[in-house]
């Protein structure tokens, strides 16, 4: 609810009041005399910590939440992020009491949970054509790291760790960062004028130091790396491996299996392709799948399906070891499995078909009014640029906010100047997409008529353009009680 003064909610610390209590819990019935810790180690008071009643907390977070745009309130075509609708039944399922067990419960008491993990592994194996999966990684980047570690372990096992990983210039930043933490040097490899990797170019970059190529497919331009099989062959001949960043699997799941076209390792983002909500930045889940040769190097724990049920292998000397506590982000796994079971095998490819259809529809409808830097076929997203426009990509993005639409991804990938990366996903209706197209055209009209006005956008958001330079130059990363300071 907007109000006359358009005042933003205060910070929780600013509404705190000494002596307020927001929880209820039974009184302590054990004497303080039993305290077995040196007084010197005990804390006095948590200075400035919030004191609120339950109603204060509820109102605060309710009103704070209202400042957010979300998938449930409108279109969110954030490229590379696959912001699809998150089914509500999955939240209900993830909250079932029966699934809420301690991770160190005896194995025979958590057979249901282990079955969930194993079931999802099976789905992913079947969808990707990889031989085995681990669901431990906490997010895509974590999966990449695990995947590159597996590759290195495998190469080491053959006595040849190698030094270099090739990564296309259009790759997501996590790729080089993850490869780096797996101990590799990165060599950037250019894509061609069609926006994809040439087999010829790859060949030029290959030598005995190359451990792997990390390829995002479809790549961050939304274009399918059509030379993938040829490239995979070249890599394999060279003793190198093909790592596929599968964060964009929404583009072709159910249509082709990465394992069938040369991928040795792949990670998936459950919080993208498999519809688990992103929660304002996480938690995610980034399972990795590998070929038969690599399975033995997967991180622990490994879930084993046996005759008498499921068991867990906590130690595996051959593997890369442990990369995260317990079994991964279990509830995210639960939601992804629920999503797939609701979808059913018959609908997996329909996801990709509709996602690609929607993206190509937007491409078709906007290609005459916006610059299309690459003319190649695109799959689940389309990238335009701000070339020849009187305003920038940023201005258009900010203006979209005024129309209640979340902007596309902007200025990524870096190889496109002023990129607008639009990914509608299959869970958007034609009505929503048509409305978006209309708004885009309207904004482009506005830009022609009054570019200055757009540079001032947004006008109707809880706050307007924020000073990011100030934030970085004088970092204020926590609330300071000025009463104490003064």
């Amino acid at each position, binding site marked *: 609810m907007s109000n006359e003064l358009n005042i933003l909610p205060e910070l929780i610390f600013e509404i705190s009041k000494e002596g307020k209590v*927001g929880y209820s*819990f039974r009184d302590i019935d*054990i004497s303080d005399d039993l*305290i077995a*810790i040196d007084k010197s180690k005990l804390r006095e008071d948590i*200075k400035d910590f*919030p*004191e609120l009643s*339950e109603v204060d*907390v*509820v109102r605060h*977070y309710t009103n704070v939440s209202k400042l957010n*745009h979300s998938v449930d309130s409108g279109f969110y075509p954030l490229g590379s992020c696959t912001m699809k*609708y998150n*089914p509500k*039944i999955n939240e209900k*399922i993830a*909250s079932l*009491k029966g*699934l809420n067990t301690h991770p*160190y*419960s005896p194995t025979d*008491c*958590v057979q*249901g949970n282990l*079955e*969930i993990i194993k079931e999802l592994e099976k789905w992913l194996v079947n969808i990707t054509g990889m031989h085995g999966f681990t669901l431990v990684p*906490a*997010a895509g*980047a974590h999966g990449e790291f695990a995947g590159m*570690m597996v590759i290195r372990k495998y190469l080491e096992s053959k006595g040849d760790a190698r030094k270099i990983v090739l990564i296309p210039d259009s790759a997501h*930043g*996590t790729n080089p960062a993850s490869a*780096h933490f797996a*101990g590799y040097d990165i060599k950037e490899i250019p894509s061609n004028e069609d926006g994809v990797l040439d087999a010829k170019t790859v060949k030029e970059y290959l030598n005995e130091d190359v451990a792997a190529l990390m390829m995002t497919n479809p790549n961050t331009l939304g274009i399918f790396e*059509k030379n993938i099989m040829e490239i995979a062959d070249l890599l394999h001949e060279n003793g190198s491996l093909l790592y596929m960043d599968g964060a964009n699997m929404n583009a*072709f799941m*159910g249509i082709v299996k990465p394992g069938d*076209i040369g991928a040795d390792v792949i990670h998936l983002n459950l919080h993208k392709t498999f519809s688990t909500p992103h929660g*304002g*930045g*996480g*938690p995610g889940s980034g399972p990795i799948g590998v070929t038969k040769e690599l399975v033995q190097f997967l991180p622990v724990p490994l879930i084993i399906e046996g005759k008498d049920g499921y068991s867990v292998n906590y130690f595996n000397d051959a593997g890369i*070891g442990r990369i*995260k*506590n*317990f079994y*991964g982000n279990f509830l*995210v796994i639960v939601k992804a499995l629920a999503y797939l079971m*609701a*979808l*059913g095998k018959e609908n997996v*490819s329909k996801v*990709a078909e509709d996602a690609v259809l929607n993206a*190509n529809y937007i491409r*078709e409808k906007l290609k005459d009014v916006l610059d299309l830097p690459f003319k190649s076929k695109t799959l689940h997203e389309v990238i335009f640029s701000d070339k020849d426009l009187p305003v920038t990509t940023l201005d258009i993005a900010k203006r979209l906010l005024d129309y209640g639409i979340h902007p596309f991804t902007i200025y990524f990938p870096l190889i496109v100047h002023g990129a607008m990366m639009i990914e509608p996903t299959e*869970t*958007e209706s034609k009505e929503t997409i048509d409305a978006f197209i209309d708004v885009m055209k309207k904004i482009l009209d506005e830009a022609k008529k009054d570019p200055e006005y757009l540079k001032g956008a947004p006008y109707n958001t809880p706050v307007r353009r924020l000073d990011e330079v*100030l934030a970085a130059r004088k970092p204020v*990363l926590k609330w300071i009680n000025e009463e104490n300071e003064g």
Partner: protein
Amino acid sequence: MQYFPLTDKQREEIKKEIGIKDIKELFSDIPQEKAWYSLDNLPNALPENELLKRFEDLGDKNTYSDYLSFLGGGAYNHFIPEVVNYLSNRSEFLTPYTPYQPEVSQGSLQAMFEYQTMMAMLTGMDFSNASLYDGGTAAIEGALLALRKSKKNKILVAENLHPEYMEIIYSYVQNLGIEVEQVRYNRETGKVELDELKDKLNSEIGGFVFQSPNYFGVIEESKEISDIVHSEKKAYSVQVVAEALSLPFLTPAGDNGVDIIVGEAQSFGLSLSFGGPYLGFIAAKKEFLRQMPGRLVGQTKDVDGKRGFVLTLSTREQHIKRENATSNICSNQAWCALRAGIHLSTLGKSGLSKISKLNHLNTAYFVKEIEKFDFVNVKYKKDFFNEVVLELKNDNGIEFLEKLKNRKIFAGIPLKWFYKDADNQVLINFTEMHNKADIDLLVKEIGDLK
């Protein structure tokens, strides 16, 4: 199927618009000889009510619901006020992406800024980031942060660090040319051997990673440890906390001179959930700012001068710095941090103090009660927080726990899993969710085992 809003008619309209006859045309770049496979091994679509039933049945296969549990070891069963569920499940919080467009993401951003502030207050540090994956990955991020800052590549780690965290550290460093050396703990006190720490410390060492309360539940001498570490130039003390509920009860790390504190904050509003999603945290002294991994939310102003929040200092991060980033983390555990913020606000200053104290007192009560048996022995009787190691005179830990399991009690974790010399030791955790009767029952059942 309810997740596809396009109708067949609309599909045809779109195809016509974009000038194709068959949807396959859009996928013609894909190697056709490999494409259009079928998923024969998988089941068909389940309608919503059957889906729910299926997962309820899976829950029933987890046969434990009426067991009394004293399992801890890095995952704790704490009270979660219902408002935490209610508020965090608002779709405004649950369904947005990372707040890349701050003008329509002030909700997430403000909540994260508040979380950062609360974590800084609880740890006594200068600042906190907006989350890491979990306690184990936070431990290695803390170690790497110390090393980046020190520009060295050798680090000391306490032997009594959570065994899983230890494994994670070893996994992560294997290809980074980083050397890890362990500092033993004293078998009498359960604490780090300070003499050994002194011995092993030298100018090549970039820091010391220790846990407090440590894996055995014992509170370390953080201040002394930090002093020792600081005797070496550019060496940093990194405290790991697997039980965040100890923070409100114990002297803050900042006051003890700790440089970096990392850990697991599952205890702040996250259910056990078979181990995840949980919440990694990291907080540090000011000077680590530019080397911090992960996201930071900062305060700023909008063009009208209004206060607002943005993701900031992102030049540390992978999407800008790529292979030179301080970490590869991108998606983090934002929603878990939101829950922690709501949880901490609801418990508030007094609630946190009360509940953390009750954790300790319940544990102390057990220590007192179990004294009457001479065939078991609490190994470290001083300075524990909410976990203790029980030593068994005539039993091996795994068998002991199996016997109690037959009496519908999960009595703890066998230390044998992780320590070769701990066959007869088990780790037992007490929280505010136990009452006296629960503890009395545990004691009685242990007594009956004699």
